[in-house]
């Protein structure tokens, strides 16, 4: 039996120091993915000519290509076509790859959430003479969010974990740090397990927050929820 718990405790602070960069990459990618995903959803929903057809191909592509390969394509490949991108930072390439890829998935989440809203809700907004935007803002979007939050939240958690691919192109994150530490001590199990446990903890915390948020948006739809 060869397991050094003390070593794990010792390197823990040096590894968790890189948690912010992980959260930064994951969160920024997620926000961009939501924005791009919404734009995609609108284009698909209204079948905007030309853009729609192009988008279907783009979505199919990003769904089909493994994330790691996409990161490589952006980071190593694109500068070959556009020399101006040669200074593309590794972190930017990761955020770029993660956000476009997940936007492709999220667009479908948003679109079906939108379709899940009862037609009568739109009619009621019209009937009381709200403008389209007023109706969207006060009635429709809150109901879209309700449906979209559970799966969007899962994508967010998944994206946080996928940022660990960033170390392959030289971003120093928790995983890269653990690799460096263990290269000296050969205590691979302890180092990688530390990173794994941190990711696990993040996932547990985020899942907890997500269920809180879901509970909050579900409030109007629960029978007993009467103040």
């Amino acid at each position, binding site marked *: 039996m060869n397991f050094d718990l003390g070593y794990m405790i010792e390197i823990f602070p040096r590894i968790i120091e890189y948690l912010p960069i992980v959260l930064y990459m994951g969160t920024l990618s997620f926000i961009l993915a939501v924005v791009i995903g919404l734009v995609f959803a609108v284009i698909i929903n209204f079948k905007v000519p030309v853009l729609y057809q192009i988008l279907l191909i783009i979505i199919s592509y990003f769904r089909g290509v493994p994330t790691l390969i996409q990161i490589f394509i952006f980071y190593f490949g694109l500068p070959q076509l556009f020399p101006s991108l040669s200074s593309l930072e590794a972190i930017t390439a990761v955020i770029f790859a993660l956000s476009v890829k997940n936007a492709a998935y999220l667009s479908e989440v948003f679109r079906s959430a939108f379709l899940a809203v009862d037609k009568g809700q739109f009619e009621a907004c019209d*009937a009381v003479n709200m403008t389209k935007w007023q109706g969207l803002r006060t009635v429709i979007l809150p109901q879209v969010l309700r449906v979209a939050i559970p799966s969007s939240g899962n994508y967010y958690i998944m994206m946080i974990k996928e940022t660990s691919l960033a170390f392959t192109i030289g971003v120093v994150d928790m995983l890269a740090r653990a690799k460096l530490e263990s290269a000296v001590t050969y205590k691979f199990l302890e180092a990688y397990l530390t990173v794994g446990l941190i990711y696990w903890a993040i996932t547990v915390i985020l899942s907890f927050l997500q269920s809180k948020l879901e509970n909050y948006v579900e409030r109007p739809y629960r029978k007993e*929820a009467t103040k």
Partner: protein
Amino acid sequence: MIKIQNLHKSYGNTAILKGIDVEIKEGEVLAIIGPSGSGKSTFLRCLNFLEKAEKGIIQIDGEEVNLENFHKSQAVKLRGKTGMVFQNYNLFKNKTALHNVSEPLRLTKKISKKQAELIASDMLAEVGLKGKEFNYPVALSGGQQQRVGIARALALNPYVILFDEPTSSLDPELVEEVLNVMKAVIKQGRTMIVVTHEMEFAKDVADRVIFMADGHIVEEGTPKELFENPQNERTKRFLKNYLSLHNFGGVGI
């Protein structure tokens, strides 16, 4: 006054409304009856532009729209003259009873949130829902939801309120409470168009009844004329069917 001339509406190649002409005086209660699929809902929906009719002129309280040539702002103005009460209520599911009534007010009449809520809470009291202000639609019975629907329409103070079978989604024991609220609204002298299968109600409260079939107005008259002495064959058949179904427990089928 409301004046509808030669209203035509089709879905694709199927003509649904084939030239409807009606006039309704201020304060009048018009009931529309007729078989399923005759275009009653479509007619109401064309009046407040949930559907766009292709042809005809709609005039409500001085606002006129010629459907073949009009500006969107005209449609918005005309819609503002109407309130709609839906068969399946269509309350905003993410809003409390109070906000179902106050939010449209705040947004479309440009009054403060606070004032809108005051008006809304008065309206809810008027339809017998004091104490239910903070219930969301899921926590209201069908009859209560429909009463919120009526309060929502009333609060906007439209020239005419359109009711599309307001009680036909309700459990029988809840119909009465909604009809009573409607009767109270009629007492205020509101102009109303009510599509209904509640013949007793139409008989009681309508000033005039229209029998619609196949996209046409087949017959119209006072409740007494239409129910007791129908002239048209189709009206007679429809009323006979209705009576055999409802009053004699299906014996006549």
